[in-house]
């Protein structure tokens, strides 16, 4: 069974060596952005690595669950790190392609809404949100400072975030720990609902929305998500627990308590299974966790630029 020190050590060591908590490569993080302009520009897309990490999150969930059940697993994790990849966090290629398409779509949706945004590429630092969630105050502060310096150097007026965790970090946590970044807007606040339509190839008109806790409770963007999906032409179905009373995907516990996280994910998928259509979320952590158990899509996979 993994102790907290082993998990924390694994993440901190990855961050120190590679600049990413799950050791994603620069290629993995930025290959989606071919053709996207580089800064400076008024609007800067800041991914915080989170969407790109979905394949590694998905792989690590399985790996952590397996080694959490084995004796001497703290040692396994440390050896895994030393053996550079022996801990089999191998991202799924298909999922990587999906994520790249989501990120490109995010850029296209902004453009269709009249916003030309740039992206920094491999030099974009990780937001540090996982460090905060694990209770690691000093490493989080250090990482937040790095990001703040990066954002200031970009000279962007508006930082466009794509996921609720990164938005929360920049908007709520950075001011508390290191200082305020430039204006932070979540993409849902910028996309013009009338400029989106159903994405070609999505074989359903019915969607059931799984609300990310942060998106709904802290950012209050659950209504906006529905507005965009409905405007695109979908029928939206609500599970019994939705909006600010949503039910967690289990993701926040997936590194420290992977088996508990898996059971929470299973319960949420069971709740969603009672409804028709495709389960949709607007959070990479939800996508990584719930998507491990069944068909779940991100909102960036079901809409595209275009008028109905």
């Amino acid at each position, binding site marked *: *069974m993994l102790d907290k020190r082993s998990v924390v050590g694994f993440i901190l060591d990855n961050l120190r060596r590679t600049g990413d908590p799950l050791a994603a490569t620069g290629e993995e993080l930025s290959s989606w952005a071919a053709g996207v302009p580089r800064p400076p520009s008024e609007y800067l897309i800041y991914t915080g690595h989170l969407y790109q990490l979905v394949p590694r999150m998905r792989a690590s969930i399985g790996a952590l669950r397996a080694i959490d059940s084995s004796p001497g697993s703290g040692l396994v994790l440390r050896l895994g790190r030393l053996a550079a990849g022996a801990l089999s966090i191998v991202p799924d290629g298909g999922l990587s392609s999906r994520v790249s398409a989501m990120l490109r779509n995010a850029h296209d949706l902004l453009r269709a809404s009249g916003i030309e945004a740039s992206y920094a590429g491999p030099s974009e630092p990780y937001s540090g949100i996982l460090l*905060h969630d694990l209770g690691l105050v000093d490493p989080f502060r250090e990482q937040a400072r790095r990001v703040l310096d990066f954002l200031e150097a970009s000279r962007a007026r508006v930082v466009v975030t794509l996921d609720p965790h990164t938005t929360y970090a920049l908007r709520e946590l950075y001011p508390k720990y290191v200082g305020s970044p430039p204006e932070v807007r979540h993409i849902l606040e910028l996309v013009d609902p009338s400029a989106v339509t159903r994405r070609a190839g999505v074989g359903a008109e019915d969607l059931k929305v799984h609300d990310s*806790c942060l998106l709904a*409770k802290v950012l209050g963007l659950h209504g906006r998500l529905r507005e965009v999906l409905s405007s695109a032409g979908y029928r939206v179905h609500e599970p019994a627990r939705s909006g600010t009373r949503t039910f*967690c995907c289990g993701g926040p516990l997936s590194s*420290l308590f992977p088996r*508990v996280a898996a059971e929470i994910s299973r319960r949420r998928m069971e709740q969603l299974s009672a409804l028709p259509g495709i389960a949709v979320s607007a959070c990479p952590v939800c996508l990584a966790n719930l998507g491990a158990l069944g068909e779940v899509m991100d909102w960036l996979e079901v809409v595209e630029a275009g008028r109905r």
Partner: protein
Amino acid sequence: MSGDPFLELKREAYRWLSDERARAGMERASASFEASRRLLEGNAYVEELAREVREVKRRALRELESLVARARESLERNGAHVVVARTRDDALRAVGDIVGSGKLVVKSKSIVTEELGLREYLRGLGNEVWETDLGEFLLQISGNRPSHFVAVSMHLPREEVLDLLREKLNYRGPGDVPSMVGAVREFLRDRIMRADVGITGANAVAAEDGAVVQVENEGNARLTGTVPPVNVVVTGIDKVVPTLVDAFRVALLESYYVGGTPPTYVNVTSGPSGTRDVEHVLVRPAQGAKEMHVVLVDNGRSAALGTPLEEVLACIRCGSCQLACPVLTTVGPAWSSGAYMGGIGVLWTAITMGAGAARPLADMCAECRVCEEYCPMGIRVGLLAGEIKRGAGQT
């Protein structure tokens, strides 16, 4: 045991996850409670009650020290003996001094007595002690920890209850729930009728009136507080509110938020039983308890005033947040310091046992903060549990 509180918590959670029968019990109970809670949706009366209670609690916490002093005066004026216990040890000693040894003691459900470990303490003094709330009784005979503030045994499925009664009470009746409840009723009635001391809790204490208010559905608390000759009320100082009307509001709100309905019983006790029916001469007791003792427990509560944890003292222990919590309803009583479980349990553990004891538990909070949406008092449970995870309150 590893000695690592994180690993102990994880091991306990995984053990729980492997217990299919217990999880089935929890899921049945959760679904039933969720249905009850839906009765409250859009109930303007209960929403208004919650608003009033938030205001009552805010006012009470602002002047808690003087309210506690006033409650003491008023209760003593009404004939009760009052102890304000600063620490857990002070509280145990106070109750131990009243009860003594070699007694038959019955008690109704009380989270504060769980916090103190009162049952074990009194047994250690040589008393026979029985819990009279059905759920609490089942926990007592099974050695289980509570999984919820009110529905303490919601993780025990009927199959396990049957096994328990067969083993511990030599029950030979059928396994349907009414038959099992009937058997426990007979067992406990016998103890209540013979008891020397009845220990009860409180939902609220009215400072001006010197009265203790308690809600219940089973009727056991009413019997426990009145049949034995000595009644000892044990409760936290956070339960003190200005007036009896305020106390009623608190008690009613707690009941609505637990089950979506008003309570079957509301007990108000303002002193020992007595009568002046003959020549207006006061004689104690009449039909109720001859003595009433009230132990008001601080145990870290007043130290929380003026800190970020102060808002937690407004908690009415309805457990609404606990039933909404995806983690607690998955791992049950594993996520607990004994009396206090779930995210709100992290906060109460910090108050009553210190932030050091709470921090390992805080690791299990997903910080989804859905609990806050269900709290009638607006306590920022998830936010504060996250702050404890990040070292708040550590010295």
